Every structure is written in C-alpha cells, then in structure tokens.
C-alpha cells in the first residue's frame, strides 16, 4: 500500500512539475493559452483542448495556418479557425472551421489577429470551461476540499505512524 501511494505521489509530482515547466516555457516564449470552447475545428481541435498561440507578423501567416482572432465587436471574445484565404495587401484573412468548411462571415484584419496556434494539448481546457458554469464550480470546490481533507488526514496518520515507529525503535534500543 505504501508503495502504491508512493508511486501515485511521485506521478502527481511529475505531472505538476511538467505543467509548471510548460507554463514557464510558453510564458517566456510569449505564447498565450486559450481553451477551445467548441468543436468547429474538428478533427484538428476538439472542445476542451488548450491551444497556445504565439504572436506572428501578418506577413508570415499563410493559408492553412490556424489562427486566433478577435471578433470585430471587440468584446474580448476570440475564435480560432484556419486561414482559407489571405490578402497581404489589404492585410485581411478569411477563415473557416475545419468541421464544416464554411467560410466565416467575418474576415479578420491584422489588428484582430492574436496569433498563430503553436501547439495544443487535449483536455486541459475543460477546467476553465467548467468554471464558467456555476454547477461545475461547486463540484470543483467540493472536490478541492475533499482532497485537502484527505491530505491532512493522511499527513496526520503518517506523522503518528512515524512517531510510533520511532518510539518502538528507542524502546527496543533501551531493552
């Protein structure tokens, strides 16, 4: 049982450390993460993916690149679709989602484009998507509290066990 717990603990530490390093690297490289909220880019990107987007000069963009752009209404919402045509003179792109292939009604100008998708990771986006839903927030809060309680209890148990083992060891020594 101790061995299993140790393996789980180590795996958890590795994952957390790995994600920490990932965040550090993308931040240093100037990329920003977005959680994919719909399936319009299936099969390339699914809902729940995290895409890391790097700012790219307009001249370096080309047809076929997946970019994240702000909506014309400029309310902070963005969309991530594939470039289907690009006008370097007008600095304008037309995009489409992979799933339907329908060209988006809005074209995007250079100032709307946040950047080109550098890479994506599945599933990690669900946390932020869930947190926009009040029901999910409650579930996550309860989950965190449970984890904290279990960790506290496990820590107490381990501490008592260690103290108990130490007492036994010193008694044996005295005997």
């Amino acid at each position, binding site marked *: 049982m101790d061995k299993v717990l140790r393996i789980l603990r180590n795996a958890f*530490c590795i994952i*957390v*450390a790995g*994600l*920490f390093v990932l*965040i550090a690297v993308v931040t240093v490289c100037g990329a920003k*993460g*977005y*959680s*994919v*909220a*719909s399936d*319009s*880019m299936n099969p390339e*990107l699914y*809902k729940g993916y*995290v*895409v890391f987007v790097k700012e790219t000069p307009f001249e370096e963009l080309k047809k076929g690149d997946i970019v*994240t752009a702000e909506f014309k209404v400029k309310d*902070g*919402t*963005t*969309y*991530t*679709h594939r470039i289907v045509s690009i006008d370097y003179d007008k600095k304008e792109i037309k995009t489409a*989602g992979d799933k339907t292939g*329908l*060209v*988006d*009604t*809005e074209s995007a100008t250079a100032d709307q484009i946040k950047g080109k998708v550098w890479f994506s990771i599945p599933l*990690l*986006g669900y*946390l*932020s*998507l869930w*947190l*926009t839903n009040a029901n999910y927030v409650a579930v996550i809060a309860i989950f965190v509290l449970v984890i904290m309680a279990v960790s506290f209890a496990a820590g107490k148990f381990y501490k008592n066990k260690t103290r108990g083992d130490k007492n036994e060891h010193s008694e044996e020594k005295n005997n």
Partner: protein
Amino acid sequence: MSTAKKRTIKYVSLVASLILVVSYFSLLSPTSAYFYKSETQNAKLTFAMFDVEQTLFENEEKLKFDGATKLCDTEELLFDRVAIEKKITLKNNGDADARIVADITPNDEAVNNGLCYYVEFVEEKVSEPETDAPETVAEGEETTESSTEEVIETTTTSAIKKGDLKEYLESKLNISDSSTHDSVQSALDNHNATVEGSYVIIEPGESATVRIIFWSEYDPVMDNNGNEAGWQNAGGNIKNINYSCNIRIVAAQDRDEAVAEALKEETQPEVTTTEETSIEETTTEETTVQQ
C-alpha cells in the same frame, strides 16, 4: 540540510506549483466558435428525387381515334372528334429550378398510319407565399438534409371536338403550303423537334404544362387503308383506329449534364410519382363547342 527541511521545501514547492498550474488553466480564455451567419449556410441542397428517378411521367399511350381528319384541308372540319389533347401539368414545390424536357415517341406503325402530334410548353407563373427556402446553391455541394425538391404533375386527357384548335394550330405552325399534307407534316416535324430539343425551366412555385395534341391524318390513313370504305364497319359506323405512342416527361436540375443523364435512363413501364404527389388522370372529357 536536514531531511525534514528538504521535505518541507519539496512540499511547499509542490503546493505552490499546483496552485499556479490550476490557476493558469482555470483562467484561460475560451476561443473557437461557430459563426453560422454565413450567407452560404443552408445553401446545401439535395436533389434527391432527381438522383433516383428522373422520369416524371412515362406512359405508353393507346390513342383511339374515331376517324381521320385532314389538317391541310381547310374545307374539312378539322378535329372532328379525331384529336386528343393531353395536358401534363408540373409544379415545382422544391427550392431549386427544375428543367423540364418532353420526349414523345410514336411507334413506327403509328407514324406510318397517320398519327400526328403537336407539342408545346405552356408556362404559368404562379405566385407562391415565401417559404424558408435556402438561398443559392453552391456549385456541386450537397447536404445530408432531407430533400425538399419535388415536381408534381397532373395529367388531363380530353377529346377535341370540331374546329376547336384549327386556327390555333395554323397560327402556331409555319406552314408554307397548307394545301398539301407534306408541307403540313414538315411544319409539324420542325415545330415538334424544336420543342423536344429544348426545355422549360420551372422556378420554385411555378408551374408548366406540356400540351400534346394528337390526331390522325387523313391522307396517310387512306394510303394505308385503301379507301374510305375501310373506315366503316358493316353497319356504316366509323371504325376506330388505334395508335401507340410513348410520352416521357423528364425533370432534372437546370444543367445540361443532368438532363443528358436523365434522358439516358431506361424508360420505365409505369408512371412514376413521388411520395407526396399524385397524378390526376381524368377520364376523357368532351369539350363543348359552339359552331
């Protein structure tokens, strides 16, 4: 550094990293959305009916005439119960233009024995209330949505009485010499070839009628039957003369390739209909004529 201190540092680092990671991924902005205000939305149509059955109307008519008439003879009372008018009306209840082609093929014996016909399209523009029909079709696109196209047809058959269509046909046909059968036949052949070689387009909500008038021409009948006595039975009544003729009305997408493909299809022995259509075949009705 003691083991306990190392453990504490490790523990604190882990917690701090965990908090940072969870915070980072919790606060990501959502992206990716469906636009779906595209003007090409719903532009995908399925011409399902035309994929499966392109012949709207197929019938081998058995045309029965009471006698023969002489179109070229202006003294003769034309269409003395010897002309049959067939009207096949087609209505486009679908969402895309339909091209209608008529193909009339009398059998050889009928032709040799004097069967003549005149065919024309009669277009009727019908005002239909606007529906939620999709907009223009993008070239070559298809959808998996259920089809909304259909062209329905009704047919009527009526016998024409005396002189009903004499002036009408004479005005429609460019007859060089109305006194001879050959010139009349030539004009008829030219007209029919033009109509059958062309088509009418029915837009959504519109109707078109294919009108075919059949009659039996006097001179060929006489040539084949010898004399007028051959027209009468023992009681002195006019005998009937029967002809076979294949009538085929085809509907297809308004594209040359679609029509060519439709006409290539083998003829069906019975009249074809769509699920939601019905053919109203009326019995022979008599047209009242004022002489």
